[in-house]
Every structure is written in C-alpha cells, then in structure tokens.
C-alpha cells in the first residue's frame, strides 16, 4: 500500500547522488554513443558515420561481425554450462548445510570463503594450480596420462575456467538457497512427515517450490556474472589458446584498448549493454508476472 505523505521533500537528498551519477556514468556513456555513430581520421576530427559501425558489427560476413558472433556464442555457451552446474550443485550443498548448532557457523564460513577472494587472485590461483610444471592439478593430470595443457589445448582451458567459476560462485547460490530453506516454516516438514512423504517428495513438493524465487534471483545474478566475466579467464588464459576463451569482455577490451578500433568497439559495447539490459528486463517481467499470478 502507498504510504507516502504528499508534502515530501525527501527527493532533495537524492540530488547530490544524481549529480555524481551524471558525471561518473552518463557522460562516459554518451561519449561511447558519440563514438558509435562517428568515424575519425585522427587529429580529433570526427565525421558522421550513421549506423555503419552497427551494420558492420551485426553482419557475420565481416571480420568484426565474425569476431562478435564468435565471442557471443562462446559466452552464451559458457554461461549455460556454468548455470547448469552451479544451480543444482548450489541447491545440493545448501541441503547439506546443518540446520542448528555450532556446525552451522562453521559450515557457512567455510562455504563463503571463495566469495571473499578478489577476482584476479582467483585467476592467479587457478593459473598456478593448472600449470603443468609447478601446479598440482596440471602435474597430477599429466602424470595420470591425461593430455592437459591450458596454453595449447582449448578443452583444457575451458575445463579450468569452468571449474574455477564453479569453485568461485557455487557458494553464493548455496548461501542464497540456505536462506530460502531456513524461511520454510517447520509446519511444512511436520505436515509432510504426517502425510507420509519421503525425502525426495519433500524436496520436490516443498523445498524446490519454496526456493523458486530465490533461485530466479540467483540465476539472474549468475547469468550476469558469467556473461560479463573478464578478470579470471583473462588471468588464466588471456583469452586463448587462439580465440578459444575470448568472451565478450575480453574481446571488447582487446578491440578498444589493444587495437584502438574506437568506432567498432563503441558499437560493440552498446550492443553488449543492450543484450544485458534485455535479459534483465525479461527476468524482471517474468518474476513480477509470476508474483502477480500468485497474488491473484
């Protein structure tokens, strides 16, 4: 219910924040928009290029288009794989967390540890871990006769990056699900015992439906995280071998800062941004729609 009073001057407090936001994000953003519609021959002389950069980017027959499409598909595959592993694993872990006693705290701290490590450090850890000369994983796999080389073999690189992401982020889903599970009243479990339900039935008919909202949020966060991933794979593989692990962010940075291809990079980042916003919007409308259906 609306609880606003009409004589409300609270918006005045928001003004400083809005000014900061204007300078810190809107101005650079407009610069990018500016670049995406113009071309330059250097010397800071710009001329109108219309939607040329965008046509270039979205046409898979051009070199830039091909690059973009490749990175996009790679990135989508990466997000799909990571979600497919982390969501069920997160739920499974959350179900194993003790419900009471000192072990709750111990388990939660242990599970939260990976979340506390800075992204680039995570990358360094796994880069070292998978090296075939000094890394435990690399040395171990090689000794076991498994062909494994992150810098040469695309499958190895993907394997390490996926395992790294699962290691880094499953904890977040597990903690979210744990909070969701804790919110289920005891009466549900007691009713299920009285109704003679088995463990699977309790999970399928009580726990999973009650986790639905938490899972939607968790999946959204993980999709965004994996879709915009940069630091960790860049530290481990640098986008290689070849283009094998060049995800959108990595590719974009290469294009903008490595090759100073400003027009293409500007169009690239705007389209990238648009995709993220669209996914956000779809998630948002889906969840609010589902809520309304519940309330009806």
């Amino acid at each position, binding site marked *: 219910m609306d609880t606003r009073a009409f004589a409300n001057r609270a918006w005045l407090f928001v003004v400083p924040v809005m000014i900061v936001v204007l300078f810190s994000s809107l101005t650079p953003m407009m610069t990018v928009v500016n670049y995406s519609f113009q071309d330059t021959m250097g010397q800071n002389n710009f001329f109108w290029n219309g939607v040329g950069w965008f046509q270039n980017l979205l046409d898979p027959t051009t070199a830039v288009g091909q690059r973009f499409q490749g990175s996009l598909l790679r990135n989508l595959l990466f997000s799909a794989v990571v979600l497919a592993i982390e969501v069920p694993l997160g739920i499974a872990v959350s179900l194993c967390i003790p419900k009471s006693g000192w072990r709750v705290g111990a388990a939660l701290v242990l599970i939260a540890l990976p979340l506390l490590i800075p992204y680039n450090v995570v990358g360094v850890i796994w880069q070292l871990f998978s090296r075939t000369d000094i890394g435990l994983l690399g040395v171990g796999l090689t000794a076991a006769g498994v062909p494994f080389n992150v810098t040469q073999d695309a499958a190895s690189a993907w394997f390490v990056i996926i395992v790294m992401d699962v290691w880094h982020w499953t904890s977040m889903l597990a903690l979210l699900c744990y909070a969701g599970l804790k919110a289920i009243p005891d009466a549900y479990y007691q009713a299920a015992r009285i109704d003679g339900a088995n463990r699977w039935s309790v999970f399928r008919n009580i726990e999973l439906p009650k986790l639905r909202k938490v899972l939607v949020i968790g999946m959204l966060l993980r999709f965004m995280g994996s879709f915009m991933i940069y630091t960790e794979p860049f530290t481990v593989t640098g986008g290689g071998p070849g283009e094998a692990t060049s995800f959108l962010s990595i590719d974009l940075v290469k294009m903008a800062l490595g090759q100073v291809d400003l027009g293409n990079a500007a169009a690239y980042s705007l389209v990238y941004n648009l995709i993220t916003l669209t996914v956000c919007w779809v998630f948002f409308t889906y969840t609010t729609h589902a809520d309304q259906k519940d309330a*009806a």
Partner: protein
Amino acid sequence: MADITLDGIGHAYGGAPRSEADYALKPIHHVWESGKAYALLGPSGCGKTTLLNIISGLVIPSHGRLLFGDRDVTRLPTEQRNIAQVFQFPVIYDTMTVAENLAFPLKNRGMARPQIEKRVGEIAAMLDLVPDLGRRARGLTADAKQKISLGRGLVRSDVSAVLFDEPLTVIDPALKWELRSKLKAVHRALDLLMIYVTHDQVEALTFADKVVVMNDGRAVQIGTPTELFERPEHTFVGYFIGSPGMNLLRGEVSGAEARVDGHVLPLGAAYPNLAGGASVKLGIRPDYATLTQGEGLPVTVTRIDDLGRKLLAHVSLGGAGAQSLVASVPRGMGVDLGPARLRLDPAKTHVYHDERRVEGRSLTAGRAA
C-alpha cells in the same frame, strides 16, 4: 481407530521438575474416546500446545505414558503414530492441484487409484472444494488454502486422531461461521477422534463433545459445554467461559446461607463441610443474576451495557468498597442508573473454596426430614 490414553502425561522443559511450577504441563490422566470430538481451550501459555505436541510426537513428555489403544507410542516419531494434523497457517503443496493435495497422504501410503479418487471426492464435497479440484493450489485465497489443509487432515479414514492447531486463525471473520459449522458436520459424518486446540471459546464449545479447559499448565475441568456453563468446577472456568464471565463475590458461608457485603443470600444447597463463616467465593453467571421489579437485593446500577439483543447492568452491592457484579436485565423491563432490585438464582449460585467448587448437600432432603 482406538482410544487415546493419557497415563499421567506431564512435561517439564529441561527435565527434572523441582516443584509444581516447573511443569509446562502438569501430569494429567484422561482417556479420549474414539469417534468423539475434544477441544483444548485456554489462554496462551496454558500448556495446550505442549499437550498437542506430545500427542503429535513433536515433544517427548518427561513424565507418563501415551497410549493409542493398547500401543505405547510415548517415544515413537510422528510418522509412526498414524495421526493427521491441521496447522494454524495453511500448509499446501504449491505445485500440486487441489485434488493432488488432498490425495497426497493416500498416495504416499499406496492406496489404489479408484479408492483415492472416491475418498478425495467425498472430502472435497464436504468442504465445498469440488469446483476447485482441478485448480493449482498456489493461486487460491487463504481461506481456500486452509480448507485444503483441513481436507488433507481429514482424508485418511484410518488415523488414530486428527489434531487441529487453531485452524481458523487465518480465516476471515465472516467465513468462520461457515467453517465452524462445516467442521462439526464433518466430524459427525466421519466418526474420527478429533482434538482441537484453540483459545476461542466459541470454536471450542461449538466443535467439541467435551472441552478440556486449561490454565497455567493444568487441566482445570473436562466437561461438556453445558457442564462448563452450568457447573464450572474452578473459578477460572467460570471466568473464561462466557462473555462476560461468571461473577465471583468474596463472602462467607454458613449452612445454606451466604453473607456478602452485609447482605444475606440464600443458597441452593447446604455446605456443612465448610466450617461456619468459612471465607469463600460465590460464583453466579450474569444470566442468573437478574434485575427485578419485585423483591430482591437492594443494589445500585452503575453502568448499562446495551448488547443490542439484551441489556447488561453493572451493579454495586452498595456502600464504599462494596463488590460489584454484572446482571442481566429481563426483556421488556426498563432500567436506569441508580437504585434497583437484584435477584440471584440460589440453585445457580455456586460456592468456591480455594478456587474449586464445593459440592453442597441437597436441601430437599433436609426439608423432608
């Protein structure tokens, strides 16, 4: 189907009680007969929920034994007790339809499909859920959801008991009427032992064949609604049953007379066991204390409550520090603040010593002699 026997069941949280006060539930002996409806009635913290939890298996009592028929179930887990329970708030399985929700306890016990459908149909018909059977349970109103919970509690015909834990809390006041009646009818139709926990006297008195009135961890009286109204065995029952509750007046009793604030009141029985002039309380319900235009105690009306269908007068027995009581005003009689006459029905006036009712000796025998 069997009786439930409470054989000295008592509970003290944390184990060994040192005094009576340490008991959350003081030891109780009672047999609940199969097919009957019982209510546990009392204010919050009176121990009724502890007793319910002992029966459902959530709490293992520190004292006594719980028998379902001849079987000692004191330490058995909930799922081996063969009971059904309806909770305060609706517990439904979100992803299932109404019909699937109702069928769930039967399906889990491997009942054959045609039998399940028949039973679900019967229960749904009793609770007016038939039009909703195919709908998903999640989208329904709180009332409908609670009806599903009720239905799931009632769907098994082989349970030892169905427990209700304040099941009408979330129901809209306008619909409580309907559901209370429904539950009563369902009990008559299903012939199950039902135990209903509530702090609401209307729910308890309407639903139950026998009501267990609880206060401070103790079952103070177990009786039919009529007994609780006409012959409260404890002052708490007199106070708790009835709106307003029973009038309690401090006084002295000798023989078949009571002395209250200087007035002499005749009693319906003689109390030779109470020593002459014993300090007791007299209990009389407002329904049996009536203002009258004829002979009666001189009193002063200090306040009049208009309940619409009747008037209640608050009267003072006169004088400073005198006690006051609530009396009813007969239909058609006018009433004003100020002096009035009060008639107390001697046969309906009870004597309480140490908060417990004292049984008097009938006067008719004495008169005949």
